[in-house]
């Protein structure tokens, strides 16, 4: 009988009177990858915080290698060999890779930092992860995937025996994800225990050995084998059976709303892209990371410059020099990074709704009551769970996204571009976003949806434009499109 490295017994956590974790118990063994699943708010991050020492439980106990384990802070957990790798990478871009790996724990010799040793040992860890970059180069300019691996190297340099990976693939493309998995498997073979948090079902089935599902702070299910249908997993997460994830799509109207011809990016992110979107049609844009999807839709929305080509709205050629130009013509974008591009998270929900509509108030007094009336209307129309004066940071990802969408829809746009509309949003809330997207199409809006989630693009699009390395690889009709045909084009 093998011993678990970490075991949790009856862990509970309350913030004030609000319970966020209720009596959670499980074991983690050396050399296994365990998925920790749950909707946002299910308690995953609280639980990983407790394991990694950034929070302490209200009740319950943990043991680590047979010894009682109650880390008071992350440093104590790291000393024991438990390292949490956050979703947002925490590297210092202007320092070298080696320095990042040993930050705070620089190897010393004669009272000074022993750079030679630091570089050598960092290089060893990089080699262990099959990452062939010089440890002396600075982090700035490295791809997200490489940065992710450096974070892992950092953990390995600390002799981590348990890694907690919080959505490690959120910003990675298909090939990069595969490379990361290879390293995860290698670490598993070396006997490192791994807790893997992700929203992507396919990945979880691929990489993890066991699945622990949390719902409303409780462990609702433990699957001893990850080879079970996605539907079963999702159903246990949301606690109800899913009839269908995607609403049925309306028939596009005959009128062409948006026409893009031979559009080429000023920064060479994409070349000669041509397509059109009808009123009431949803065009999906698929492709690997770096294919130029985001850049393409940013250019259409006036956020990035174009070198050549044209964008026609309703048959009229537009000169888009800034987002303001596009917005004035009725093209609006829900950007990929909600917290950095979509919302001022520290400001109120009402404020955020107003920011996108300031021109409507240009000649009027923006009294508190006018602002509140405007915000309340938007909040009610889109089912946002919150009040106008609450800061946007209080909201869950799904509700934040609804605010970003709502701020635009108050303007009755003609074209709505959504870049990664459900990134970081839990499965239950995604359905709400899909409903909004499809309802837009029903109202005759031309909709463009960019997504790395293949299932999502396939589910909500009438047609799919596939980009590969900045080139237009093809446009697939709903009938032609499936995961194989899209991936074939994307990897051209």
């Amino acid at each position, binding site marked *: 009988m093998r011993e678990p490295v970490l075991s949790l017994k009856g862990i509970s956590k309350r913030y004030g009177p609000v319970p966020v974790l209720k009596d959670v118990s499980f074991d983690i063994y050396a050399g296994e990858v365990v998925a920790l699943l749950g909707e946002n708010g299910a308690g995953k991050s609280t639980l990983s915080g407790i394991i990694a020492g950034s929070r302490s439980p209200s009740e319950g106990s943990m043991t680590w290698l047979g010894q009682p384990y109650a880390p008071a802070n992350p440093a104590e957990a790291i000393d024991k060999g438990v390292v949490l790798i956050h979703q947002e990478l925490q590297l210092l871009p202007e320092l070298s890779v080696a320095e990042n790996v040993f930050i705070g724990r620089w190897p010393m010799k004669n009272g000074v930092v022993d750079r030679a040793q630091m570089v050598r040992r960092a290089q060893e860890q990089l080699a262990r992860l099959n990452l062939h970059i010089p440890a002396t180069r600075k982090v700035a300019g490295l791809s997200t995937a490489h940065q992710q691996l450096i974070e892992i190297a950092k953990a390995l340099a600390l002799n981590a025996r348990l890694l907690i990976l919080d959505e490690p693939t959120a910003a990675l493309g298909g090939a990069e994800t595969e490379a990361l998995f290879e390293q995860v498997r290698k670490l598993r073979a070396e006997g490192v225990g791994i807790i893997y948090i992700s929203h992507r079902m396919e990945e979880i089935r691929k990489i993890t050995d066991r699945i622990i599902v949390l719902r409303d702070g409780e462990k609702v299910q433990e699957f001893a084998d990850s080879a079970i249908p996605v539907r079963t997993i999702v159903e246990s997460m949301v606690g109800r059976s899913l009839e269908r994830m995607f609403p049925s799509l309306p028939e596009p109207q005959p009128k062409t709303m948006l026409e893009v011809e031979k559009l080429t990016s000023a920064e060479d992110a994409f070349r000669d892209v041509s397509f059109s979107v009808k009123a009431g049609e949803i065009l999906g844009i698929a492709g690997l990371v770096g294919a130029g999807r985001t850049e393409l839709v940013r250019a259409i*929305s006036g*956020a990035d410059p174009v070198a050549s080509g044209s964008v026609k709205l309703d048959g009229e050629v537009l000169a888009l020099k*800034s*987002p*303001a130009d*596009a*917005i*004035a013509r009725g093209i609006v*974008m829900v*950007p990929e990074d909600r917290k*950095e*591009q*979509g*919302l*001022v*998270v*520290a*400001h109120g929900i009402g*404020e955020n709704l*107003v*920011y*996108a509509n*300031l*021109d*409507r*108030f*240009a000649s*009027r*007094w*923006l*009294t*508190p009551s006018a602002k*509140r009336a405007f915000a309340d209307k938007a909040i009610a129309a889109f089912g946002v769970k919150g*009040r106008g*004066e609450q800061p946007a940071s209080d909201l869950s990802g799904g509700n934040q996204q609804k605010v970003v969408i709502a*701020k635009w829809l108050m303007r009755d746009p003609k074209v709505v571009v959504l870049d990664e509309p459900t990134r970081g949003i839990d499965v239950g809330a995604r359905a709400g976003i899909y409903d909004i997207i499809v309802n837009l199409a029903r109202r005759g809006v031309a909709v463009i949806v960019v997504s790395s989630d293949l299932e999502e693009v396939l589910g909500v699009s009438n047609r799919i434009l596939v980009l590969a390395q900045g080139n237009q690889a093809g446009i697939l009709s709903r009938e032609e499109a499936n995961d194989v045909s899209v991936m074939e084009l994307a990897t051209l």
Partner: protein
Amino acid sequence: MSVLGINEQKHASKPSWSWLRGATGPLIGLIGLCLFLSLATDTFLSTRNGLNILDQITVLGIMSVGMTFVILIGGIDLSVGSVLALSMMVMGWTANVAGLPLGVGIVFGLAASAASGLLVGLMVTMFRVPAFIATLAMMSAARGVANMITDGQQIVGFPDWFMMLAIDRHFGALTATVFLMLVVLVVAWAFLQLRAEGRMLYAVGGNQEVARLAGINVARVTIAVYVCCAMLAGLAGIVLAARLDSVQPSSGFGYELDTIAAVVIGGTSLSGGAGGIGGTLIGVLIIGVLRNGLNLLNVSPFIQQVIIGVVIVLAVGAETVRRKRR
């Protein structure tokens, strides 16, 4: 029904305090300071002294409004002290050397300060020079130009009506300059709270990219803010000229630091997007009352500097701690 009732109560209780958002700590500090000085001195608590304080804070008050705008959009302006000197020297030269009416001098002074603000705004937006550097450069350049105008000499002797702006108490209370400061404060408050253009400052300071993607012309807002700040510094220079009945190119030396201090004490965040005029008014009053009170207590000006330093740290530290607890 009951749910609605609760919501409305919350809504109703909010606005009366909202202008002070983030500045309740400084307000308590200000009240405490006034209480202490009322007990410690015989002279502090009098109408006369109150009016004196108002007279003493006019220059700082007007400059701090412009600085609030700049700091709200996440910028900084180190040039306000020099721009103040430039504005007053241009005014003095126009009126006393070129012999034009003083009114024209005032307009020229304001135009000169607007031009320096425009230059800073262009440097920050078009050439992406960090605001700290652009305004540091302007701080030096504007001071240089102010000195060049008279080769470092002061200009004295303006029409009586000009001096009386800072002396004559209308309705037995307010001088024209104090009245001007109050108007600037009220207009700026209304602009920030109630106008779409004012809210743009909060959006830009909160997150530039969000603001740009929301269709706000970030460059235009930024330039306008630096022009506005410089013009208010120029206006403060004219007020100072009226108070001193003279203009000299060394005026306003170090004022940028007092101004930034007042804004920061008032709870406006140096990272932008949070704060407002209500807090700045309290910050200005704290500095004004502190200076006045310490003078009444015969504290040496050197120790006063130390005390103001301590107050800045206490005010900002207390606010940060309070926010964390919440």
